[in-house]
């Protein structure tokens, strides 16, 4: 059952991920990305991170991606034109990527110590309660800092957008 779920959503995620890269139209990529996020949320649930799953859906799926789609609609961005001035990226990209994935695979399968087997429900610490406790005790300062950061981001966005208006 667990395996089945994993396989289904992993495949969805990978297909959607490829779709993000391959689709010519931004909005298709964006929607595929939403698909990736949804399936990842399910995988988070399998990993016992229920809160993170919901946060993933709310923050990513609900806010960030909607913002993206909103902007895409606003700019009415059409499909991109194939124009490659960056010849280096075109040439060197693929081999580097392959080497990268190969290295990562090697690390995952040979270098890492014994990994657990994921069983749904065997570890359910990822509740909102636990995260809240940790977030407001041990990680209080980072939390404050990150909130300041996002405040600054909002201000920056507003400023840029205002420049947009006039």
């Amino acid at each position, binding site marked *: 059952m667990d395996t089945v779920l994993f396989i289904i959503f992993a495949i969805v995620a990978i297909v959607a991920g490829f779709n993000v890269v391959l689709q010519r139209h931004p909005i298709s990529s964006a929607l595929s990305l939403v698909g990736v996020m949804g399936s990842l949320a399910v995988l988070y649930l399998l990993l016992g991170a229920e809160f993170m799953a919901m946060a993933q859906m709310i923050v990513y799926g609900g806010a960030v991606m*909607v913002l993206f789609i909103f902007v895409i609609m606003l700019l009415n961005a059409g499909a991109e034109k194939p124009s490659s001035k960056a010849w280096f990226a075109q040439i060197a990209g693929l081999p580097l990527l392959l080497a990268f994935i190969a290295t990562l695979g090697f690390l995952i399968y040979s270098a890492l110590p014994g990994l657990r087997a994921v069983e749904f429900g065997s570890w359910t610490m990822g*509740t*909102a309660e636990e995260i809240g406790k940790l977030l407001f005790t041990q990680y209080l300062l980072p939390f404050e800092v990150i909130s300041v950061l996002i405040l600054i981001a909002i201000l920056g966005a507003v400023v840029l957008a205002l420049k947009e208006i006039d």
Partner: protein
Amino acid sequence: MTFFIVTLIKIVIVFAVFMTTLAYLQWIERKVLAHIQSRTGPLRVGPHGLMQPLADVFKLLTKEDVFPPFVNRFFYLLAPFIAVCLALITISIVPFGPEIEVAGVRTYMQIGDVHVGILLVLAITAVSVYGVALAGWSSNNKYSLLGGLRSSAQMISYELPLSLAIVSPLLLANQLSFRAISDSQAGYYLGFIPRWNIFQAPFPQIFAFIIFLIAAFAETNRIPFDLPEAENELVAGFHTEYSSMKFACFFMAEYANIVNITCVATLLFLGAWHPLFPAPYSNWVAPLVLLLAALSCFAQAAQPRRKNDQYTFPLFGVVFLVLTAIFVVAALEIVPVLSTILLSIFWFLAKVGLLIFAFIWVRGTLPRFRYDQLMHFAWTFLFPVSLLNLLITGLLVALFPERI
């Protein structure tokens, strides 16, 4: 294995009831609006137009499925699908009543409980923007696009007050799952004031409730916030280009959203299925209401306005009497399980029904906002107020950790 079977049964029941409700909700709305505007509303199809929803469904199914030439096919088809699916999910985690035991099987009157139920609801609400937005964008029509843009902006904006309004009852309940929240609202102060969250100590959540309702109007694109489908500005907003079944999907989604949001409101603020005052007396509310309905039907039958009233109204009266009898049995608690089920469902549906009525009522009375007013309202009034409410709640909860 029993788990599966029981769940399956529950799903079937809830689905059937839910779909019918959606269908008849439209009839109810039309009737209520009509009476608000002193019209009679649907009357021709079936007695008092009771067959109207079926007729509508039939019409929508058999209508020609117009497929505009310049649309982005995939998303054009995907959008209503997304909308309706997301709209139908939420009901599956709504508890209608306490734990019951039928034929030795203990189960909850709820399809499935989720630890993070509220968050799930929020997530679904958040994602359900895509339906509208995509519909607007993909149908390649400037009105639709504007509608889509408006709705996405509006939904994002009103999601914040909605979430903040939700957080404060959560602070009181200390739980995220609907079941736990409902249970936390059981009982009475001084024996007669219910522990619903709108009366909950230390800080009654009335403001949160109002904010939640306002935001809910916006989230469901209802008047006075139905900018996305403002028919006098943009023909029909995001679903201008949609017809027949695809249109029906959006239609269903809208009503489903209404039901969901009212259910959530009931669960969060109005104490779910817990009656307004303690058990032995509150049992008799349901029979009383039904009896009054029956009597009014008979009264109507006495002087009929139309000629077939004299047949239909007595029929309704009889039906109501039967229901009254059933609820009397329930109130006497002869069969405990039955009474639990019936009473809790009655109370739950009563609250939801009232809220839905409020929705329709508002639609019948209030004018529509202008777009900038809408945004202004959301960001400069609703958001700060909800934040303030949340702050006060948190402070009081922190000050009085042990509940009275």
